[in-house]
């Protein structure tokens, strides 16, 4: 099922990846593994195979075998993978036993914070300014470590409340126990944000999937070696950015839920989106909704959620609703109900229940499957509602579109109503107003136009949508984020995600913080695998407060957050699509 497609683009739009440069993008999904080969920003080849869940390597070899039948791997410059390995490990509970040491301080009760039987609370903690309120008791920590060894626990997570204000205690605890354990994850490395319960969950998951993920990384490195390529390998993260594979082993949890991220980055690369926009991925069982602001995909404000674990992982904001082309349609207490169950494929493809897809076939919106079977299925609903089949099909189709549109509007409403904390932002009241609707997925063709009408913007169906994920992964740039806190009263500067706390002079200013932040972010991004031309630093938080004690200003509290936002690699995206 390999085919070859290419589009000409003008040569002045090519830069760093031009001249025989090939990128291999692979998306290992739950059902299919897709691969794309991109040369000079042209989609050169694409391939799709069924994912062998027992042996991912087989799928990888099969799909790339297809792809490289007539290509020379020597021309490869980069390989990017989007993988469900971390997600699946968590969903299927194939995780390591993790001992947790929590410096929880005052606040929520330990009973609320405890996430497994191996959670231990210790007496030290720091306060909201990062000032140590109670020191670490070394004996207490050593006793817990001994207990871990006795229990055969060799993976640990160390998480302090407000450790993003002062990572010192987490590091101190690690230094006490480090030599005795196989892997230790530290809370402040996961994110610079505040949220202790999420920090605990994130650190736990990071440690819990560490071994499995590390083994996967070795396999991938072997596999690329076997292909005869010696090129950088990148892994896609939940925020739609990539990081270099060696760096990824410290933060495997960043790779959870990268599937939806790949799909959104795919839409981005297939559409040249730079306005406020809606992206819909309509599948069989669910529809995923994503929103772009000025062409940049929105992130989850607090972090992504997986299997009930609320994490701090920066991830693209998606909303998944239980309605798709194969949703079961039934008539119950005078109402047509669509989804959330899927009984199987559409009736037109031999499924047991009527579905929106069958309705679209009856309406002549699409010419797939067995129309007689579709009509028979829709007739069963028509009989119950007491109207002709065509009318029932129309009702089902309209209702499917309407339910999706309502969910999109709710999501926009939620985003537009997010709380803000300054008078300026309240008065300014910036609101998203989507200019275009991008639709991918099986029923995109028959549904897009009507959805666009309901949402008040033109609909667009990108080409090559069936390999959007692999294209998105291939072209995603490396992202990074860095949080800085300066407390000039304490004379400390904390660079959170790097675990650094240093002394600063009295006159330290917000500009100093911004300059250091930008420089350190650049270093961090390069370390993560970014290319210089991809590092567009964006300041996402920049606040300064006078600290006043007894009517005298005693110092400044400066808070800076900088990022390289999700987007496509340089040289791509200048009025250009695959």
């Amino acid at each position, binding site marked *: 099922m390999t085919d070859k497609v290419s589009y000409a683009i003008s040569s002045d739009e090519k830069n760093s990846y031009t001249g025989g440069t090939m990128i291999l993008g692979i998306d290992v999904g739950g059902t299919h593994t897709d691969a794309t080969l991109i040369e000079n920003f042209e989609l050169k080849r694409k391939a799709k195979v069924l994912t062998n869940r027992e042996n991912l390597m087989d799928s990888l070899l099969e799909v790339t075998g297809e792809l490289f039948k007539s290509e020379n791997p020597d021309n490869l410059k980069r390989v990017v993978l989007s993988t469900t390995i971390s997600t699946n490990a968590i969903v299927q509970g194939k995780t390591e036993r993790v001992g947790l040491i929590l410096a929880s*301080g*005052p*606040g*929520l*009760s*330990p*009973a*609320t914070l405890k996430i497994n039987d191996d959670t231990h609370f210790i007496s030290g903690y720091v*306060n*909201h*300014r990062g000032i140590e*309120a*109670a020191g670490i008791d070394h004996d207490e920590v050593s006793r817990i470590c001994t207990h871990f060894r006795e229990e055969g626990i060799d993976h640990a997570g160390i998480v302090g*409340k*407000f450790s993003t*204000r002062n990572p010192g205690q987490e590091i101190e605890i690690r230094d006490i126990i480090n030599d005795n354990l196989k892997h230790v994850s530290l809370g402040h490395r996961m994110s610079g*944000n*505040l*949220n*202790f*319960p*999420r920090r605990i969950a994130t650190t736990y998951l990071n440690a819990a999937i560490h071994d499995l993920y590390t083994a996967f990384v070795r396999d991938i490195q072997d596999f690329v070696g076997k292909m005869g390529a010696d090129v950088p390998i990148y892994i896609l993260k939940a925020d739609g950015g990539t990081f270099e594979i060696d760096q990824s082993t410290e933060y495997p949890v960043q790779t959870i839920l990268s599937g939806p991220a790949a799909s959104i980055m795919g839409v981005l690369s297939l559409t040249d989106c730079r306005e406020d926009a809606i992206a819909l991925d309509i599948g069989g069982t669910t529809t995923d909704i994503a929103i772009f602001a000025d062409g940049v995909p929105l992130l989850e404000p*607090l972090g992504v959620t997986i299997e009930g674990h*609320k994490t701090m992982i920066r991830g693209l904001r998606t909303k998944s609703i239980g309605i798709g082309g194969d949703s079961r349609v039934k008539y119950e207490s005078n109402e047509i109900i669509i989804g959330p169950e899927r009984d199987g494929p559409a009736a037109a493809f031999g499924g047991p229940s009527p579905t929106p897809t069958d309705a679209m076939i009856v309406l002549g919106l699409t010419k797939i499957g067995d129309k007689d079977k579709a009509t028979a299925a829709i007739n069963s609903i028509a009989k119950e509602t007491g109207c002709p089949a065509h009318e029932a099909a129309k009702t089902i189709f309209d209702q499917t579109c309407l339910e999706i549109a309502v969910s999109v509007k709710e999501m926009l409403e939620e985003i537009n*109503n*997010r*709380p*803000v*904390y*300054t*008078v*300026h932002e*309240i*008065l300014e009241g910036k609101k998203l107003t989507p200019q275009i609707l991008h639709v991918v997925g099986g029923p995109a063709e028959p549904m897009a136009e009507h959805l666009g009408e309901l949402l008040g913007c033109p609909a667009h169906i990108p080409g090559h949508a069936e390999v959007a994920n692999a294209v998105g992964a291939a072209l995603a740039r490396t992202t990074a984020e860095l949080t800085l806190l300066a407390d000039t009263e304490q004379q400390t500067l904390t660079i959170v995600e790097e675990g650094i706390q240093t002394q600063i002079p009295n006159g330290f200013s917000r500009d100093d913080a911004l300059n250091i932040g930008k420089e350190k972010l650049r270093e961090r991004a390069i370390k993560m695998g970014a290319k210089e031309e991809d590092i567009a630093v964006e300041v996402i938080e920049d*606040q300064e*407060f*006078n*600290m*006043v004690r*007894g*009517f*005298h*200003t005693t110092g400044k*509290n400066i808070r800076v957050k900088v990022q390289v936002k999700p987007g496509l690699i340089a040289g791509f995206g200048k009025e250009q699509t695959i």
Partner: protein
Amino acid sequence: MKRTGLIFFPAFDWAISPTHPEREERLLYTQDQVFEEGLLDFDNIIEFKPGMATPDDINRIHICVPDAGSVITESHLISAGGAITAADKVLQGKVDNAFALVRPPGHHAMRVVHGARGFCNVNIEAIMVEYIRKNYGPKRVAIIDTDCHHGDGSQDIYWHDPDTLYISIHQDGRTLYPGSGFPEEFGGPNALGATINIPLPPQTSEEGFLHVLDNLILPILDEFKPDLIINSAGQDNHYTDPITDMRFTAQGYAMLNEKLSPDIAVLEGGYSIESALPYINVGIILAMAGIDYSHVKEPDYDPVSLKQSDEISRYIEKEASEIYNLWKKRDSIKEDLVGGAEYVRRDRDIYYDTDGIREQQKETVRICNDCGGLLTIDSTASTGNKIFAVIIPGQSCPTCRSKGEEIFASTDKTSLNYAYFQDRDKNIFLVE
């Protein structure tokens, strides 16, 4: 567990002045603690963006001189709007209770506003209460003001309203601004017992506050039977507060809110922004949401050193029972106090400490058994403004209304800067 709405508006870009206690930094550490505790991740704690109050909302209860726009900033509209959002969510049943964690505060703002008093320009609880009555029908409301300072503004606004029970618990006025709030201040002639003042001696701790709550406030609430309980939630009774002298704690505030079970809490004062507010606010939110708050403690919390003296305990026990007896006798006091008078007048000098304005006010109420009574106000301020206002009370009787309309029509306005006519029930606000 309860569904608790949180309206958080720290106004990070608004201050009275750069080093004033009411400044940008005030809720910074509270925000940090609330975020770090992950409180917004609880399914039963829901954050809402504050709406903005309108000048109509202010004119429903205040007489602003010369007008609302001149005495407030946008920040006041958002703060009052936050309280209104809290009320909407509760009254529409979206949540069981709500906490408006907003600034600037309002409980020192009186009915007539020439400027700012005690960091307050307009009274955000009163604006909220009258918004509720306008939009959700007449309600009996109890406001429990747990700020360390006497809420003289709220007291002034509800002095004549028999349907609003205003209870203030605060540090004794002989030792703290604004110097008022004694048990004898017991409500106007038409609303005796609808104002209750409970001054507490300096260095009162948890024990004293909770004694007053259990033995005085809760029994009175039982008898008053309010439709809504509002906590005017000042946080300056805390043992670390820089401008007061009390020994209340985060645990105490949480227990108080658990027992009081307010429908709506609105932040008032509290200026120990680093050592107290983060812990008190987390405690209040958890208590309102019915989540275990027993581990919310200040880093230097020490119940032994914070214990109040036996002398204070005895004083408070005696005072609580005296005030309760006074409340029991509220109906029989009216006869002695009013006699056969048709109108009762009170003359006051009011000082606006924040803006340095002095006001002389003559307030006259019509004695009425059928409503809160027609009110007229003569007010002259050091700004040079001389005003007269006719105020028809909410749920007014026909006599008070027609007399008020007559008085306003026949008032000679030539010697006045402004004349105001306010009729809340009919939604009329006139300025001449």
